[in-house]
């Protein structure tokens, strides 16, 4: 994974806005690329986007808070997503999620104090054939049992 850009560096976000500003409906794309580069969307970045586009901050904030993939807080180095789609749920992903939180002392949607982990209950990732499924960054773990969880987490 590429290094994240520090929030103080506003040149990158300005360049992203400049690249897209003439495309109709560009705000979503700008927010997506900004989050990709910076890791999250703190108020400073939203304000810069609003100023550069010449639209009110409320509009940017409204969009950034509407979609679940935009985050206003930094995520952990390892992002865990336990799928709570229906296929995973009926095959027992809820106990998997509880076990993960149990071991790491995490709460869904939060990041640990040391910045190492963040845990989310995700929507269907579309790997229903492997249910129940958990992702750690880009690694997919399928056909999980609660017993395997400690061993998987130890690898990180």
């Amino acid at each position, binding site marked *: 994974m590429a290094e994240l850009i520090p929030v103080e560096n506003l040149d990158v976000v300005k360049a992203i806005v400049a690249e897209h500003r003439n495309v109709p409906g560009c705000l979503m794309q700008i927010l997506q690329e900004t989050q990709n580069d910076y890791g999250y969307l703190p108020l400073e970045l939203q304000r810069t986007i609003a100023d550069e586009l010449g639209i009110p901050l409320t509009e940017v904030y409204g969009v950034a808070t509407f979609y679940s993939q935009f985050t206003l807080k930094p995520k952990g180095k390892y992002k865990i997503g336990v799928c709570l789609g229906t296929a995973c749920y009926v095959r027992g992903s809820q106990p998997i999620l509880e076990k993960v939180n149990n071991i790491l002392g995490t709460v869904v949607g939060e990041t640990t104090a040391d910045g190492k982990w963040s845990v989310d209950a995700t929507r269907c990732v579309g790997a*229903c054939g492997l249910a129940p499924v958990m992702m750690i960054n880009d690694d997919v773990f399928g056909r999980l049992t609660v017993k395997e969880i400690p061993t998987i987490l130890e690898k990180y």
Partner: protein
Amino acid sequence: MAYKRSQILICGGTGCTSSGSMNLAKELKKELVKHDIIDEIEVVVTGCFGLCELGPVVIIYPEGTFYSRVEVADIQELVEEHLVKGRPLSRLIYTEKGDGHHPLSINELGFFKKQKRIALKNCGVINPEDIDEYLGFGGYTAIEKVLLTMSPQDVINEIKASGLRGRGGGGFPTGLKWQFAHDATSEDGVKYVVCNADEGDPGAFMDRSVLEGDPHSLIEAMAIAAYAIGSSKGYVYVRAEYPIAVKRLQIAIDQAKDYGLLGNNIFDTDFSFDLEIRLGAGAFVCGEETALMNSIEGKRGEPRPRPPFPANKGLFGKPTVLNNVETYANITAIILNGAQWFASVGTEKSKGTKVFALGGKINNTGLLEIPMGTTLREIVYEIGGGIPNGRAFKAAQTGGPSGGCIPASLLDTKIDYDNLIAIGSMMGSGGLIVMDEDNCMVDVARFFLDFTQDESCGKCPPCRIGTKRMLEILERICEGKGIEGDIERLQELAEGIKASALCGLGQTAPNPVLSTIHYFRDEYEAHIFDKKCPAGVCKHLLDYTINEDTCKGCGICAKKCPVEAISGEKKKPFSIDLAKCIKCGSCIEACPFGSISRA
């Protein structure tokens, strides 16, 4: 092109990729080089074959030998046996459960026998990242036929005559939708064609499989739609959760542009068409067409009131046709084979096929395409191979959070749009989740309400407040705090929300609750009046006990218990203080002798 004596197809769908199929491809090529047969054998990474349960899947042609759950460590032997010596490696050939029969070709598998592939015709057959393979299978001949021999109205008439209905869930006649957009006037002449690939229903992944396995068929179909309504610009709105799909679609768009199949003056006609991908950002409501258009415009994905309908005033205020991926995936076949051919498949009012993503408690999880009118029993027991671990079928859930649970007594229902609505469910986008006796129907209803309540955009009060109130009642019931009248309260709220919510999400949100109350009322009553969960799912309604006869008194459970509810003397049976017990289940997991049970 050099002659190849054999083709090895490796599934590169999301399911098999997650099981490591990309490493298999690398290893295969390495082995083929080692044996110096790389020039005579072709390795093709394809889209989804459908049988995700058995992934990673490898099929070797010309025989069509079906190898399942192949690992990197198997590759050396597979190449030596099958490709060098010409002996199929029986150890890895998939055996259908029960009969021990080794089918040598995939067409003999029960999973494929009852299927009819129209929308998925190329999935798992061609390399989706190579436009030449799509062309080799007749690709872009439908758009050629349309542009050179048909008028826009001819195209619309053909689609109308085919009886194709929207595969995203609503089932609106596709030809009629195109007609409305064709007839609509746009002041500056601008119209849009949009594809809804924001497949948000949990447990549904058919659109993803088309994007990953046959992206060119979508591009071609959207170009046909654009010609029919008089548009020159299209958008595909894809969930950001589908990185492989987005990548392959982009590759396909770039290749089509290189070949002049997208862009200006396609086939040297006046017709021009350009296509752009827009990514979603995780909002279920954006599967609703007006919300989706707001999202493409860079706004909050809230639905708009109708009228005006998108056909007159849609994306950026212009006339717009919006169809789902699977709907588009049927278009080229209709154009090439004719409306009569398509209409000969299916039932009276639901023509053609439907793709289902089969998941949950079922042996063959995966993707299947069946003619409309196939019964649920055929899907579950013949294609799906029945329920694992000898458990009994309890319900099939269709339509995702908008649908309902179908009980065993209705397994012989012939699946089509109207029959499913008649039994309190709906077609939806095609998720089909099977549940067995270990799944609690009240908990399932709570699960879906939790989902819709969380995904409600908050614009209209019936959905924002109503689903929240319903969820609170369901949570209360699952915690053993249900009171008399809760079932009736749920029904009353449900009817109100259905009648007054602004968009499809709210109007259908109560369906899982209504259908489970209708078919499984006894389970609700057991929770409310007897404070019992018959399926053993709702934690608060379970009591934990230690079997005195098998407990060895090791004390491991007492150490694991987070609230010190377990006590006892070493080497004598321990006991649980139910007043302290928080029913977390740690003790069951910890006990090495399986002496703790819940009921």
